[in-house]
């Protein structure tokens, strides 16, 4: 607890110092201090997650009669590890920023505050503390989004973010209101003792889904995320995408699994359905986008969807009294949270590196970076393969667990869930395949091939400390993949707290690295054995090939079926890579239309090709209500020009209506 206090205090102090003085040196000092604080906080969290313990305290600050309840239990500690790992990587990356050019008083003072706010959300133990730190988190991140406010697009992103954050917090406010009940017990301990009525529980669940879903980017509340996350400086994007979305999920887990009491089976439907739609749509957005950072942000949306599906399944299994299956689904969710925080931070830092050296976010201007930035290319490749859920990396471990829990879903008694199971399974498989397509596209266009712009041709490697930040995360992705079974085993205490069971036969497999979902005879996945196997097979193949083959290698121009063209413009671009997917999926989901304008024969003008996509969610759920609101406010504008007598009539009418409602209801 003292470590927590000390570390959070240090973050606040360094933030204040940096803000007040604004000197370059103090701005630069922010990152080492944040890194140290993250290490301290992370170690404490890790100890509590694995070893139990934790602390609870009531501080006499905050609201007069309530005070400030703080508590760190194993669930919070697990999320604390996720968050502080991401903060550490982002701070390391920040240490490599160019002191003269890249530090600004608009970002650096807020960075430690943002980190502290996310930690505060985790240890908040009453609604007031929770909402306060939640808002602090939103505002600090918002301020960093609009740090480069001269760009109109960033301003627009910041505006939308602010609106959506306000809607989300309002929803959470109602959720806690419902949880607290008429007595108004806002401390989480008091809330746990009350059992809300089914109606209240449904309302709380819906508002929590809106509040946490909007922060996490659940479709249809995602619109701000792909605008705001890329607008911030890259290491902040890494934090927002890799870590802040996890805080949002923490909020949902805390409310749905801890505060709200025993679930009803239908609670699981909204997260499952929305999550599955989010997973597929998020990637469809991603695969058609050309902006590297926005692609990553959309992929965050997808991963949040996947996590919500897992959470929904866990709710369903738990409601039906199948704790073992609930543990599998929950383990999938928690593991995916951890994994996603690693590979998404890695990918955003990699995108930051690319942005830094080429000055470009548009994929169409990149290419060939694997030759100019060899280490970053390796790290980014690890991240890209992990996020595509390919074995033996870490993304696949959680994906595998999730598929196992989907396979168990047909055994549920409710026919709605039964029939949903194959649809969910198919949608998740589609999302996984789309993720592979999306990241093959990103990597193939950005890092492989030939440079498409002068900047890409002149790229160079980033500073060592930034390489360390990315390399560490890449290592975690590999280790998390190989040791997934051990990691899942380590989740046991958190799982017990949330769903009342751990994985049933964990650790009984043939090797300690065998991941067993239900039963060794039912399904098993052993990353270490497979990796060993693949390693042996490739070494054997190499040896044999080298013994038998000519071993001669010659370099020559690319063959390309006899039509090599030295111009890099002839390469497949990001847009052309997504063309088959656009035809197949885009035509259905976004009404994608391709228009080709050919000049008449003999005319020397170039032919033009354009693609139009319609984002129906944006047009129907955002633009239309906004227009309606405008129209309504124009209408209501008349209210400002009434006579005093009319105003009195209005007030009197309101009073009478309220009184009559009171007369009827009381």
């Amino acid at each position, binding site marked *: 607890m003292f470590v927590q206090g000390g570390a959070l205090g240090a973050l606040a102090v360094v933030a204040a110092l940096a803000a007040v003085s604004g000197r370059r040196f103090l701005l630069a000092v922010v990152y080492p201090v944040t890194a140290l604080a993250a290490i301290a906080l992370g170690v404490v969290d890790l100890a509590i997650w694995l070893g139990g313990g934790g602390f609870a305290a009531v501080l006499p600050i905050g609201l007069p009669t309530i005070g400030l309840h703080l508590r760190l239990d194993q669930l919070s500690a697990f999320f604390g590890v996720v968050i502080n790992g991401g903060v550490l990587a982002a701070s390391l990356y920040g240490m490599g920023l160019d002191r003269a050019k890249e530090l600004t008083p608009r970002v650096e003072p807020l960075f430690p505050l943002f980190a502290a706010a996310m930690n505060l959300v985790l240890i908040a133990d009453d609604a007031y503390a929770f909402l306060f730190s939640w808002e602090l988190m939103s505002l600090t991140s918002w301020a960093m989004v609009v740090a480069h406010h001269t760009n109109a697009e960033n301003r627009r992103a910041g505006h939308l973010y602010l609106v959506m954050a306000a809607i989300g917090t309002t929803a959470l406010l109602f959720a806690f209101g419902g949880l607290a009940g008429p007595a108004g017990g806002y401390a989480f301990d008091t809330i746990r003792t009350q059992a809300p009525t089914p109606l209240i529980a449904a309302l709380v669940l819906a508002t929590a889904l809106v509040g946490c879903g909007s922060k996490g980017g659940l479709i249809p509340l995602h619109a701000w995320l792909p605008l705001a996350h890329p607008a911030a400086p890259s290491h902040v994007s890494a934090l927002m995408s890799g870590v802040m979305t996890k805080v949002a999920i923490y909020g949902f887990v805390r409310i749905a699994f801890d505060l709200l009491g025993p679930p009803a089976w239908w609670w699981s439907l909204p997260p499952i359905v929305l999550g599955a739609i989010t997973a597929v749509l998020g990637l469809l957005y991603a695969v058609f986008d050309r902006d590297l950072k926005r692609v990553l942000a959309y992929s965050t949306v997808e991963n949040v969807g996947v996590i919500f599906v897992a959470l929904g399944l866990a709710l369903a299994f738990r409601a039906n009294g199948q704790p073992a299956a609930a543990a599998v689904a929950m383990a999938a969710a928690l593991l995916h949270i951890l994994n996603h925080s690693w590979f998404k931070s890695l990918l955003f830092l990699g995108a930051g590196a690319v942005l830094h050296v080429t000055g470009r976010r548009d994929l169409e201007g990149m*290419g*060939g970076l*694997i030759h100019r930035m060899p280490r970053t290319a390796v790290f980014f490749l690890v991240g890209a*393969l992990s996020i595509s859920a*390919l*074995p033996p990396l870490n993304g696949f471990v959680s994906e595998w667990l999730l*598929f*196992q829990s989907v*396979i168990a879903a*047909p055994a549920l008694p409710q026919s709605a869930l*039964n029939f949903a*199971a*194959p649809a969910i*399974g*198919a*949608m*998740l498989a*589609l999302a*996984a*395949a789309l993720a*592979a*397509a999306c990241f*093959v596209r990103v990597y*193939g266009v950005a890092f*492989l*091939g030939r440079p498409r712009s002068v900047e890409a041709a002149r790229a160079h490697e980033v500073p060592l400390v930034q390489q360390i930040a990315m390399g560490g995360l890449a290592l975690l992705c590999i280790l998390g993949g190989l040791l997934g079974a051990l990691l899942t085993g380590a989740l046991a205490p958190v799982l017990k707290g949330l769903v009342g069971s751990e994985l049933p036969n964990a650790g009984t*497999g043939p090797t300690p690295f065998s991941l067993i979902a239900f039963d060794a*005879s*039912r*399904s*098993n996945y052993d990353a270490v054995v*497979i990796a060993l*196997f*693949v*390693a042996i*097979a*490739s070494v054997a*193949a*190499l040896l044999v*090939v080298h013994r*038998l083959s*000519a*071993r*001669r290698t010659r*370099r*020559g*121009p*690319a*063959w*390309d*079926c006899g039509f*090599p063209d030295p111009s*890099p413009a*002839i*390469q*497949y671009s990001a847009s052309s890579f997504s063309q*088959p*997917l656009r035809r*197949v*999926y885009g035509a259905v989901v976004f009404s994608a239309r391709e228009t080709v304008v050919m000049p008449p024969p003999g005319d020397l003008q170039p032919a033009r090709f354009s693609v139009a996509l319609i984002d129906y969610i944006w047009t129907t759920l955002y633009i239309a209500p906004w227009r309606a609101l405008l129209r309504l406010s124009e209408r209501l504008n008349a209210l400002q020009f009434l006579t005093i007598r009319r105003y009195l009539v209005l007030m009197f009418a309101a009073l009478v209506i309220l009184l009559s409602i009171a007369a009827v209801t009381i």
Partner: protein
Amino acid sequence: MSADLAKQFLAQGVQMFLVLLIAPLAVGVVRRVKARLMRRQGAPLLQGYRDLAKLLRKESVLAENASWLFRAAPCLIFALTWVAAALVPSFASGLMFNWAADVVALVALLGAARALLALAGMDVGTGFGGIGSSREMMIATLAEPAMMLIVLTLAIAAGTTRLAGVADFFIAEPLAVRVSLALSLVALIIVALAENARIPVDNPVTHLELTMVHEAMILEYSGRHLALVEAASYLKLVLYLSLLICLFAPFGMAPATAGIGGWIVGLLAWTAKLLTGAALLGVWEVSIAKMRVFRLPDFLGIAFIFGFLAILLAFLTRGAVQ
């Protein structure tokens, strides 16, 4: 116990080299059948081995800007496919490391090989490499949901996603006509055609620009690198044929407890079924035309629909039994 382990280990080793050994022959059978049906003489059955030997002897020409990824990919693709093929029970279900990956993991291993191949196709920065990669990934997005549905049906029927477990279940179960299984069989055949770049999804023998998918990705490879990629594609064919055999026609396969005698029976049965499957593939390929790329969603959609119907019918049967 240790004798048992030794036997399983031996089975695993035999399997590992068996698939490697038989893969070019299976491809040879497909080509031969196709050629004979077109009233051509056709290459000898052993042409696959000769092709590989020839490619290994030739020098490898790399494009000037090919990166390390381009050189490393063939070896990894080969290793991933080989390991996946070694994990599908063929002649005996008691393989040493069969437990290391269930169907889900197996599909993902192949997915990893595919992603690497698609990346390698993008590496040199040519038009054809890109066209192949992008189409390959599009086809994968159509095939994987169907595959997931097939896995789900099998899991509902057999209660396991371990291949050996499913095979043991179907060996023990009296052969029964089940609509849901028949539907998943059709679905799996379609998925297998797509994954192996066979007609009507892709044509493995053509280098016609507009129709290439798989061949376009490996266009820049030559020499030993091409040999490894080709060997991986042979292995993949054997893998999917073995998968079909293991799931839908496992009779003859030696159960985990069988002795050497059972192995020999299993070996003969598997080889016969594999080569029959290859011959059937040859017949299929001459009797149907290659589809336009953008007709593929319809074709793979059949797999999806059949997979989904299979699950619904499996629910129905289960509901009736309960």
